[in-house]
């Protein structure tokens, strides 16, 4: 039975023969050993140089095995190192006390070599797995913390607030951004209904109706709406989305929500819409300006063709057509000039 790596076993026993025997036995199997006849000396050495496992006798003068184990468990650097008792005390109470002190195993004297080695190896393996698991857990925690920090930063950049409401406990949690959007200091108790405090009168009925449907209608699983909230500083447009979270049995357990202050976007869209309307009106106005002389030209031409009684002289018609064409030409020139001026102004800006 050879260990895969050279682990260090600290053996503490006041009987020199036992120490020698255990030391030789473990060395033969490739372990490094640190042998101590007294608990206090062993503790000092362990604090300087951590072993991978303790093998402790119980009955020793000055500091017995229980006391040593209790001391070992007091030091954070040693507390996770497995302790195995190896003792002549064979009664149940001694074993129960040993385990309650934090030991992982108990070997009765006289011991069998194979048994000692098997138990040592098993506990070293377990310890190794536990250490790896701890490292893995720490890494996982770091990754989760890292991703949470990224998410919070991304939400802060996007000014996205999130919240959740536990339907079983009734507890509600808002993110910092959500508190900021709704101007409620972080730490103040909140509920989902705080999302609808001071609703703009024009949005109140429709918003609350949608929320009631979401909460009471079993076939509605999503709440998605935009509404205005009145604050002392003015009003804000809020885009609010919420969805249910379910357990494995399909029962609703939580409401997960996201909110965004879309006031700026709304203002921008409104401005865009006004500008668009102005542009449209201008286009219609221009088209009308074009159409007036154009319809005159078409009307005069139609009349020239259809006028068999010569009600208007050819010279008159041609002169009128030329006047209208000139009018059309000056409109086109004016528009061209306006475009050029606008382009110059833009490039100067």
């Amino acid at each position, binding site marked *: 039975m050879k260990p895969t790596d050279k682990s260090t076993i600290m053996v503490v026993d006041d009987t020199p023969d036992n120490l020698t025997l255990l030391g030789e036995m473990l060395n033969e199997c490739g372990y490094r050993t640190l042998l101590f006849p007294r608990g206090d000396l062993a503790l000092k050495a362990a604090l300087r140089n951590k072993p991978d496992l303790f093998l402790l006798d119980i009955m020793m003068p000055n500091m017995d095995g229980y006391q040593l184990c209790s001391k070992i468990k007091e030091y954070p650097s040693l507390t996770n190192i497995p302790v195995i008792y190896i003792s002549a005390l064979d009664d149940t109470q001694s074993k129960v006390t040993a385990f309650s002190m934090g030991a992982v195993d108990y070997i009765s004297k006289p011991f069998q070599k194979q048994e000692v080695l098997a138990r040592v190896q098993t506990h070293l393996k377990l310890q190794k797995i536990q250490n790896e698991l701890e490292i893995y857990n720490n890494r996982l925690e770091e990754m989760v913390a890292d991703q949470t920090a990224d998410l919070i930063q991304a939400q802060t950049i996007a000014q996205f607030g999130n919240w959740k409401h536990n339907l079983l406990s009734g507890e509600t949690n808002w993110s910092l951004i959500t508190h900021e959007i709704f101007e409620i200091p972080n730490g103040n108790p909140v509920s989902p209904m705080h999302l609808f405090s001071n609703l703009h009168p024009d949005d109140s009925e429709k918003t609350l109706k949608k929320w009631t449907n979401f909460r009471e209608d079993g076939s509605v699983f999503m709440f998605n709406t935009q509404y205005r909230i009145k604050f002392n500083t003015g009003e804000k447009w809020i885009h609010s989305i919420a969805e249910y979270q379910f357990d494995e049995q399909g029962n609703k357990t939580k409401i997960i929500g996201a909110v965004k202050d879309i006031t700026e976007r709304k203002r921008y869209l409104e401005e865009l819409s006004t500008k668009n309307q102005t542009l449209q009106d201008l286009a*219609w106005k221009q088209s009308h300006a074009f*159409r007036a002389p154009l319809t005159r030209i*078409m*009307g005069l031409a*139609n009349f020239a063709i259809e006028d068999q009684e010569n009600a*208007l002289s050819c010279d008159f018609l041609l002169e009128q057509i030329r006047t209208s064409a000139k009018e059309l030409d000056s409109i086109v020139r004016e528009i061209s000039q306006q475009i050029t001026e606008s382009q110059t102004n833009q490039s100067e800006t």
Partner: protein
Amino acid sequence: MTKKKLPEILIVDDDPMILLLHKLIVQKAVPDENIIHQFEDGKKTLEFILDNDAHDKNYLILLDINMPVMDGWQFLDQLCESSYVSSICVAMVTSSIDYRDKMKANEYDLVFEYIEKPLKVDSFKSLLEEETTLRNC
């Protein structure tokens, strides 16, 4: 066969050339010059109608939209608010190709047709027939 009574034709447009052209076109279908009247805005047209209002009066108005003083829409609104007894039919004759103007024209019961300028002799003759049919309904 009794000859159907023709309506009086009111041509309303702020463009003097269009007024002249429309008058000549109307004259081709309605030789009686006494029943053709020309106005350069809605206000003068409205005053004429109300001053001459009578049960036996029939008017077919060829109405432009964009005019100074009182535009075509203002004219229609004020006419609707006035109490008159004459029989009136309005055809919008305009250079506007704005679909919103066409939609708005549909909202007035008085308006039975929307024609884009320039008016032609044939389209005016159709208007006249349509007006007569409507009046005799």
